[in-house]
């Protein structure tokens, strides 16, 4: 964006991300993209991809980072807070309600069996997510090696997360530097 974008109001930021948060089952990203690009024309496809790449590049929940960066671009820190609050208001209310119900009824044998089936399905979803993320890397020998290394360091050698990153990231950077033109 070379020109100064039209500044959105705090209310518009809150509302747009509120809808994305409420619709986002199993990942908010496609819903955020639909609202920001297709419906409201806040960003072009390329601008959205650029903004999202920042949020993947930095640590933390990607979609929360996206709302913070976009809100800050329009209204500074209060804009970031408005967008994040919009994104999280409904999901946090819903998940706390579910959590309280779980605490109250989770020991009931019937509910317990239901939760077991639910958790098995949720584990399957995260496996699919993992394969989608790792998919492109698995097609390149060095990428495959890094996927295996990160997995082994963490899941098999049980190293702490900072240590895994301290070992894997420099190697991965060296390999990527040789590959990326």
């Amino acid at each position, binding site marked *: 964006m070379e020109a100064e974008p039209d500044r959105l109001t705090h209310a518009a930021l809150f509302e747009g991300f509120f809808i994305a948060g409420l619709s986002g089952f199993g990942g908010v990203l496609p819903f955020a993209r639909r609202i920001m690009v297709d419906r409201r024309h806040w960003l072009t496809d390329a601008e959205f991809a650029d903004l999202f790449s920042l949020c993947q590049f930095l640590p933390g929940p990607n979609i929360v980072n996206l709302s913070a960066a976009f809100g*800050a671009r329009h209204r500074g820190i209060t804009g970031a807070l408005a967008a994040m609050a919009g994104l999280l208001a409904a999901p946090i209310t819903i998940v706390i309600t579910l959590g309280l119900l*779980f605490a109250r009824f989770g020991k009931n044998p019937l509910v317990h069996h239901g939760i077991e089936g*639910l*958790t098995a399905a949720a584990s399957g*979803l995260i496996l*699919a997510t993992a394969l989608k993320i790792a998919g492109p890397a698995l097609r390149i020998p060095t990428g495959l090696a890094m996927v295996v290394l990160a997995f082994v360091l963490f899941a098999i050698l049980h190293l702490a997360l900072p240590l895994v990153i301290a070992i894997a990231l420099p190697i991965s*950077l060296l390999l990527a530097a040789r590959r990326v*033109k």
Partner: protein
Amino acid sequence: MILLPLALLFAELSILAIGGVASTLPAMARAVVAHHWLTPAQFAALFGVAQSSPGPNMLISTLIGLHVAGLPGAAVATLGMIGPSSTLTVLVSGAWHRFREARWRRIVQAAITPITGGMVLAAATFLIRTADHNWRLALISATVAILTLRSKIHPLAFLAIGAGLGLVGFG
């Protein structure tokens, strides 16, 4: 005072969550079990509950906070998980656009993706080993994973079917 270790744990995970929150799930599980806040099975169950809500997958932190220390715990864990990373994002986002053509940016991106992939695979392995304590539950996980990759079925449908199969005694 349980709120401080709770806040510190999630603030640390926030900064270490390269590629997103999913890559920190094994570390999160390990830490909450080491603190005796949850058993591995309880963690897996809370993960299932978090996935049944709309919204980003960082909601697992809200649920863990709620379980450990009620509503103040939920607030502290949530803010810990989003505070450090979103502050960093706001600080960096202005400079980001300027470097969009930079080679180092593409290198870092290319370097992060396979690590994230390996970490999320570790998370999936952990959850499957914890949650699926019989072959029927493992079959549910495997079927959901395959159908998610091969079809456009809504994730909520899988969660509902999984819960339904559990209820009727398939799990």
